[in-house]
């Protein structure tokens, strides 16, 4: 050859090829090495999805076991550290069915009986429902479609930047309520003391024919509410004052009488603690889940009776006779009387648990 200046040597070609291959290999593994460092920027959707699943399909932890092992929404301020996870489903067996009490607890709107329940900071939500070392910002909102009510926690969703997002369609279980129209239980006996008894057969309610937790009346897991209305329409004498003298809470086979849980008179929103009290028209009784657990005994059937005793008085405070609201005539009290009001699955007497449609959204950024 006369001029070899333009030729590449084999050595150069081999070396250059090895270098290029090594370079490509190194560059292509760099992104993989960095995934762990920058994962918070790429998995917003995954975190939102996980959070949505925890909220809609998990009851949270701890769940109710007994009186000394309460569910997370029943915990008091001092027990905040015991709460590990904030799911709001009624149980793992009923995904997408939310508990009203858990929802209230989650969105800081605990009912009056649990005023000492703790509230959460954003950090608490990050630790107990978002679950990440990286401090994600978030917004969790729930729209109650029937009530047109929106509740949310977290930061305002950014309008001009991307965020991870998931939407779940759920139903909120509204607990049962017995609304007793006193006019339907007017007793013709013209006496000054009247008694009305209500039976709560917890064994029959929980282990009876309704097994689905979504529709079950379960006094151990959700509140029981009893409203007695139209009391003044049962009196046939003018100027008679109604006094609620006592509320006896008893279990069959147990001689003890337990104190009632929460009592509301007429439209007064403050719970009453001491009896006797004058009543105009309405008595409401509310029992939180832990109440029944404290007095129940499975071995003896757990039939619980609530007996309300009313006294009628004239304006001077003297006992006076009249017809009144009464289904327990005479003494001693008869547990087996068919006249006792049975809190059961008959929709004619008890408003059954209802499922209200709702929309749950989780945004993470």
């Amino acid at each position: 050859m006369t001029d070899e200046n333009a030729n590449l040597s084999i050595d150069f070609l081999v070396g250059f090829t090895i270098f290029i291959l090594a370079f490509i290999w190194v560059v292509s593994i760099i992104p993989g090495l960095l995934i762990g460092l920058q994962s918070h920027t790429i998995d917003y959707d995954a975190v939102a999805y996980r959070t949505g699943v925890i909220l809609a399909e998990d009851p949270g932890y701890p769940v109710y076991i007994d009186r000394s092992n309460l569910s997370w929404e029943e915990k008091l301020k001092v027990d905040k550290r015991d709460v590990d996870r904030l799911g709001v489903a009624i149980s793992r067996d009923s995904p997408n069915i939310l508990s009203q009490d858990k929802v209230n607890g989650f969105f800081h709107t605990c009912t009056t009986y649990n005023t000492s329940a703790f509230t959460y900071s954003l950090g608490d939500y990050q630790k107990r429902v978002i679950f990440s070392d990286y401090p994600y910002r978030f917004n969790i909102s729930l729209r109650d479609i029937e009530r047109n009510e929106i509740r949310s926690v977290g930061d305002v969703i950014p309008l001009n930047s991307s965020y991870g997002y998931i939407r779940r369609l759920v139903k909120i279980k509204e607990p049962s309520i017995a609304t007793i129209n006193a006019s339907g239980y007017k007793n013709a006996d013209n006496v000054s003391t009247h008694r009305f008894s209500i039976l709560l057969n917890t064994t029959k309610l929980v282990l009876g024919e309704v097994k689905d937790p979504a529709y079950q009346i379960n006094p151990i897991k959700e509140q029981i509410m009893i409203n007695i209305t139209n009391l003044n329409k049962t009196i046939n004498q003018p100027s008679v004052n109604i006094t609620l003298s006592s509320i006896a809470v008893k279990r069959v086979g147990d001689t003890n009488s337990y104190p009632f849980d929460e009592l509301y008179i007429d439209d007064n929103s403050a719970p009453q603690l001491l009896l006797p009290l004058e009543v105009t028209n309405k008595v409401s009784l509310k029992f939180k889940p832990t109440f029944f657990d404290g007095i129940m005994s499975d071995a003896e059937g757990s039939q619980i009776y609530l007996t309300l005793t009313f006294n009628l008085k004239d304006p001077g405070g003297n006992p006076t006779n009249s017809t009144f609201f009464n289904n327990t005539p005479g003494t001693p009290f008869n547990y087996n009387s068919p006249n006792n009001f049975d809190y059961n699955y008959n929709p004619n007497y008890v408003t059954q648990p209802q499922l209200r449609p709702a929309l749950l959204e989780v945004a993470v950024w």
Partner: protein
Amino acid sequence: MVSGDGGQLYTIEGVAAGLIMIMTAYLVVNATSVYTAGDTHINDMQLEVLGSDALKMMGTPANTTMNSIDNSTLRTIIESNDGNKFNATFFPLINNRTLQEPDRFIQYTASYTYRYGVDSVNSTFITSSRNLTGGEHTVRATKWVVVNKQLPGDSMERDRAVLVEVLMWRD
């Protein structure tokens, strides 16, 4: 070897350098966006979860009493062939938001499928919010529903399992 090849080396070096630059640019651009396995299907997954939830909620009665039959909205709609009710229920469910107005509507087409005769399968259209043109990237959600209905091939009304199928896509 030809004469006048003095520029050959420079040409090859130039081509090699160009290739390296293009390759480097490609790798750099690629490295800035990392796709995890979940990311590639995340939009589909959201639609799938939403459709599955919507059918599930439509198939869940608001209340029940002892010995009552399943009176869910979905069952009622199929038994009465009420496409309007399906649309009035399903469309808001998949498009409503809590704090914002929907930016892109989700469209759908719904049908149910059942077996009849010995080995035949028939599909019945329920309703749709928009006709499929074929270019949509649809996601499928299904739910089995037991209905009491006389379907083709049945001699009388009886409990039948039908598969409700919804194809959904974003506008």
